[in-house]
């Protein structure tokens, strides 16, 4: 079977794939961290913050300083939130976006790993709830701001720095929360979606209005001036429903996976989940705003096909107004797992918002020609450097076992296919560093 897999991952066409090279850095305690979702911020001072997950134990946040090229951790979130030895579901993830306040403080939220099973939700050993957290770079102190909503993790977060408010979605109950930084008060606006199709990101426009998806690609909007949360009829352009897209049939989310904003936040860029459509949303065009399809930013090999991999959250806009998207891809004709795309390669696709030019930059390789897979977060620094967080496949014995990758969602199944694909593979979670136009071998052949 292993031989069969090795054959499958080889180039099928005989042509070597196009490659884009990136630098990478492992995190402290590199064997510990099993995953990252969404949580990556290149802050205004140049430092990069990354949420690190540890299913079944405490998460952390890594801080990378590019000036010194050093990385360190902000502590064990299970300990900081006072959960040590409590025998409850641990604070195993920092899954939410990491947000920078107007004063430079860094906000994030903690999340559950569902390690003990979703069925324990209402029981005494249930997850106590995700915490609002803040890190002050001036004092180098992480402060626990309290539980946001009982039993729920903070899966995604956005900030309105003008109003000093955090917005978050919870999992599994998908409540829309508002945290007022000045008063420390959390307001629960109630449920906005069901657990299986929640928006994995939130967008905030120039008026401080917040956007998510409420179902079938339709948008809801929270207006802070009117304090109204309303479902709109405007919807994302999307493909026909019900098409298996490297995922199981039940996972046909129609929502946006990732968002980016124009510098003035008057335009919002959505990455649609099932199609990898890049969509420009003008919230000021008409009562509900207008969607405009800019293009499909899956890797070239998937363009126009039915089997487009599930879109990843590794999506950002750089200061030069280019969308950078690290996508799931494949090196050859290998089979793919039904969740998170699962192809045993990641690619870089860019879309220049100035010219409308889309480009597949190739498969991502790091030092020693190692392959990046499962890209899950991205952020562009003020100097134009683009950071991604991804798994890097390691030689056997030099990383975590890929077959031990945790299953997060309730309905995610550890299929035989997935097990076979991951058998014998090892990986580490890494911060990828991409300096557009300056990286070795960009666009070239390995």
């Amino acid at each position, binding site marked *: 079977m292993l031989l069969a897999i090795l054959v499958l991952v080889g180039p099928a066409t005989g042509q070597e794939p196009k490659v884009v090279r990136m630098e990478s850095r492992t995190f402290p305690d590199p064997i510990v961290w099993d995953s990252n979702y969404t949580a990556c911020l290149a802050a205004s001072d140049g430092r990069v913050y990354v949420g690190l997950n540890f299913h079944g134990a405490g998460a952390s946040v890594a801080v990378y300083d590019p000036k010194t090229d050093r990385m360190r951790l902000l502590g064990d979130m299970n300990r900081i939130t006072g959960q040590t030895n409590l025998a409850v579901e641990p604070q195993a993830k920092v899954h939410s976006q990491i947000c920078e306040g107007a004063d430079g403080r860094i906000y994030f939220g903690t999340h559950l790993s569902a390690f003990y099973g979703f069925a324990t939700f*209402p029981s005494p050993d249930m997850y106590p709830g995700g915490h609002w957290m803040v890190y002050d770079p001036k004092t180098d102190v992480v402060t626990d701001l309290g539980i946001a909503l009982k039993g729920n993790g903070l899966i995604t977060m956005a900030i309105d720095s003008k109003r000093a408010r955090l917005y978050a979605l919870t999992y599994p109950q998908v409540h829309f929360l508002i945290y007022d930084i000045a008063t420390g008060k959390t307001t629960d606006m109630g449920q906005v979606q069901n657990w299986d199709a929640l928006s994995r990101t939130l967008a905030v426009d120039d008026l401080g209005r917040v956007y998510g998806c409420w179902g079938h690609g339709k948008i809801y909007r929270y207006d802070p001036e009117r304090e109204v949360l309303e479902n709109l009829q405007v919807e994302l352009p999307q493909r026909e429903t019900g098409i298996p897209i490297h995922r199981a049939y*039940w996972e*046909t989310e129609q929502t946006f996976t990732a968002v980016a904003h124009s510098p003035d936040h008057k335009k919002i860029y959505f990455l649609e989940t099932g199609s990898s459509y890049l969509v420009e949303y003008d919230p000021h065009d008409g009562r509900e705003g207008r969607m405009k399809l800019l293009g499909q930013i899956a890797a070239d090999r998937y363009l126009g096909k039915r089997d487009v991999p599930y879109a990843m959250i590794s999506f950002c806009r750089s200061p030069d107004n280019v969308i950078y998207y690290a996508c799931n891809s494949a090196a050859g004709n290998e089979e793919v797992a039904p969740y998170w795309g699962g192809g045993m390669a990641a690619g870089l696709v860019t879309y220049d918002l100035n010219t409308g030019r889309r480009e597949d930059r190739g498969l991502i390789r790091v030092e020693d020609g190692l392959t990046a897979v499962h890209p899950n977060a991205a952020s562009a620094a003020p100097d134009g450097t683009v950071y991604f967080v991804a798994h890097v496949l390691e030689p056997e014995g030099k990383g975590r076992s890929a077959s031990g990758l945790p299953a997060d969602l309730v309905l995610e199944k550890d299929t035989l296919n997935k097990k076979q694909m991951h058998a014998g593979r090892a990986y580490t979670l890494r911060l990828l560093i991409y300096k557009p136009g300056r990286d070795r071998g960009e666009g070239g052949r390995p």
Partner: protein
Amino acid sequence: MRTKSIIMLAAAGFACAAALPAQETTMYSAHPLRLDLRILGHPPLDVIPPGESAITSLVFGADGRLYGGTSGKRAHLFVLDPRWGHIFPLGNLPGQESIFHSLAAAPDGSIYIGTSLSNQGRIDERGQDILRRYKGFVGGHIYRFEPGKELAAQTRMQIPDPNRPVPFVQDLGVAVAGESVGCLIQSNGALYGVTFPGGHFFVTDLKTGKTTDKGPICGPPLNEEPFRSIPRALVADAKGRVWGTGDYGALFHFDQETGQIVPHPDRRIPCEMGREYKAIIDALVLGPDGAIWGGTSDGFIFRFDPETMEIRNLGKPIWQQRVRGLAFSRDGDLWGVGGEPGGSARIFIYRTKTGSFESGGMLHVNRMPYYAWLAYEAETMTVGPDGTIFIGETGRLSHLYLLYPWK
């Protein structure tokens, strides 16, 4: 012989395979074929909006249709005709925000509605702050809705607008000044209800429309919340006596002959030890055996025989507190839905023949890629003439669940 054995083995194998439930990694749902759901209207326009759709009352009318009442920013009324199977919003009651356990069906086809301040308000306003909301509150109204006229007018089909008021509604006035209507039933030509937060028992004569306040059925607040021990359900037995509970979960009945409330301080509903002062009735249903079956705030199920006055604790089918809805299936089993605010609603079954409980799992419908929804809270349950059990979800985005016990 050998061929026969192989066939038998194969048959046994198929039988075992058919008995396997749909396997899901860590979620336990009711049998997927047993559950379905309906959106409250016809999207995108004619649908009860988010934040106004929590289904807090259900009742079958004399016309065989299911009527539902919602809570939230506004209280809406909707109807489902089982012959069609989909929901028509009938409009909202202007100025009213909740219909909580307060839809009552009269034999002449009328539907009576009791209104309240929303119990589904913002979570940060729950608890102590609820009493603050009653300052200046006029009181919950009693309305009479005439479905026959509404159906003939076909208004629902012509104006797809959730902002329209319910047509053909007569306002019978405030039941008890300053009080919400917390539960309402119809029996023998009268409405019976209990108010919140004062716990007044009242009777409304359907001929005259006049309401009589019989006074509180409980004493000062005992709970720390601080609510009184006010029942969230009433039921009439075969003799027309109306039953409920008061302080310490003690039963009372209202005697229609004498017009008096008769307390039964030595007949208490079950609860966890030490929480007797918190015992509140959540759900009551008259069983096919003539007994009264109930669910309590601590999550217990009991059977009460109003003739022998025997009350029997049947146990606690779910880990969580609150039994929010009960209904009998056609084969005589008791189905229920329970769970705490902020928790996860569970279905359970009490098999009356064997005296045993079964878990029915979560309120999870999965018809992907077309639709799927997991309900976290449900507040009401009722059964239709064909045996279908209807369950009302109570979230910001709520659905009506249909459960087919025979499947």
